[in-house]
């Protein structure tokens, strides 16, 4: 429970909001951030799928080195890397313990390491790509590769609204706690306190459901006034909106270098 309290102190609402805005808008100046979204998507699609089908350790290792370098270039926040490492380690370790229990031996470690390597290549690639795109860029990129306008709108909306929604939820939660009565006895392993907190966390959604639905209505009315639905359904509007997105010299250079590196990997290893 001490552990829980420590975490809850670290993740105060303000802290979370700051961290969120930082991940969203913090890395606008890195090399990857200046690339065109389409370049990043192409790059990512390769690194997101191909590692699954490669079983040669040396090639995987080479890819791993490459994505580590891109992650470094993208200046991803250390907190995210930490979360990723913990997740990978716990998953791999868990599998290992369980397979030892079922009569595996040390030979089990190698395939698991390869699996972990694959997973880390994929997740590092996604982190370096998606952390270096700010929301506007991401939504424009998605729009360009044919996602519906609603999706890109939702991303922009999410980034705008989430901090205020979080604050509202926090207020409701606090007012529930103010008016309610916390359990006097903590119970075994604090279970009464945990149950109480869970109950309040769920109940707080009731007022939030109603107020958010009002807000959703206002949003949609505003969208209608701006004529956004016309834009969602007519390709020429989209074209006009995305006219400034173009692949430039450094995009081609980046893709070319990646391809060169990978071909070298495949040939020499």
């Amino acid at each position, binding site marked *: 429970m001490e552990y829980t309290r420590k975490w*809850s102190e670290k993740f105060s609402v303000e802290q979370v909001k700051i961290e969120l805005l930082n991940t969203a808008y913090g890395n606008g100046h890195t090399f990857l951030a200046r690339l065109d979204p389409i370049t990043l998507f192409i790059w990512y699609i390769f690194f997101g799928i191909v590692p699954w089908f490669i079983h040669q350790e040396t090639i995987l290792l080479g890819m791993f080195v490459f994505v580590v370098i891109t992650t470094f270039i993208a200046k991803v926040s250390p907190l995210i890397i930490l979360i990723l490492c913990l997740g990978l380690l716990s998953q791999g370790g868990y599998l290992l313990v369980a397979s030892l229990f079922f009569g595996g031996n040390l030979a089990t470690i190698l395939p698991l390491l390869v699996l972990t390597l694959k997973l880390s290549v994929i997740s590092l690639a996604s982190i370096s790509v998606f952390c270096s795109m700010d929301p506007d860029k991401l939504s424009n990129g998605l729009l360009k590769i044919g996602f519906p306008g609603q999706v890109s709108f939702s991303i922009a*909306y999410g980034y705008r609204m*989430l901090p205020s929604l979080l604050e509202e939820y926090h207020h409701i939660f606090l007012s529930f706690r103010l008016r309610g009565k916390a359990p006097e006895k903590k119970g075994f392993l604090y279970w009464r306190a945990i149950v109480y907190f869970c109950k309040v966390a769920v109940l707080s959604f009731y007022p939030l459901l109603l107020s958010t639905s009002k807000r959703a209505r206002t949003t949609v009315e505003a969208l209608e006034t701006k004529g956004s639905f016309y834009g969602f359904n007519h390709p020429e509007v989209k074209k006009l909106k995305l006219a400034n997105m173009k692949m430039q010299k450094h995009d081609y250079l980046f893709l070319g270098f990646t391809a060169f590196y990978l071909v070298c990997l495949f040939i020499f290893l």
Partner: protein
Amino acid sequence: MNFAQDRYTLTQSQKMMVFILSMSLYGLSNMITELLPSVYLGPIEFSVEYFAFIPLTLCILFHPLYAAIGAALGEVIFGEIMLGQFGGLGELEKFISFSLAMYIAGTMVTDPRNKRQVGTAAMIGVIIHQAISSIVDILKVWVGVDELEAVPGLVESVVVIEGFSFLNDVLFSGILFALIPTVYLVPRLYGKIEPLLGMKPRDTTNKYSLKEIIGPRLVVVGVLLAGAAFLFEFLSNSGLNLIEWELDLGPAFIWISLLVAFFITCLIIVYTLKKKKKTIHDKTEDRRISS
């Protein structure tokens, strides 16, 4: 009867409202559950997997399709992209399984005031979602580890771990954070929340069916994708042999075939998304003209 059904069809703006509502609320809850710590009792993990009651409630109260898609998108945007944990293509699987499960749960309820119906729907929604995701997780290890049978104990351990987390999620998160809150919230919100979005409460006469989303196209695409996955697996296995035997041709061959296969898959996905959106749009236009 027919008239009553026509009256419930939503305009595009109302669909968007349901979509935004479900997206922002479920996204918010997702962020909260991401930040909540999990408690370990030995190997057993007690964690709040998700607040499934929010999409379940909304799918039962409103049109299930838009609420389900909104919730799934909210999870991706708020819970993943904004926290910098976007898994890219892996999210596609989550998106599909989650929206499918929530949609099915929503279609099962005909009367939101009937608590037994709501409860059954909530549990079934959670079970479908968890079952799909555990199967996919098992498949991931199966594809990711070459010659799985050669490794002693790995198959059993993966199945046991996934089965265990399935049971844990269904019994713990499912009952505490899906069943109880949904049964509590749905009858209370019914008739209160709909006027805020400017629509009539759903009445017992209108039903949704799975046919609306599972058309022949979806089945064909699913089969194609599964086929593509097996092709990749086959290519990679034969590719290893090629590298061993003839060093010059091998890598280039895998390289090219992989690239071609991926481009085809991506094209299919993009094409279907476009087409789906177009048909949805056409349908709404038709409805508006006819009503």
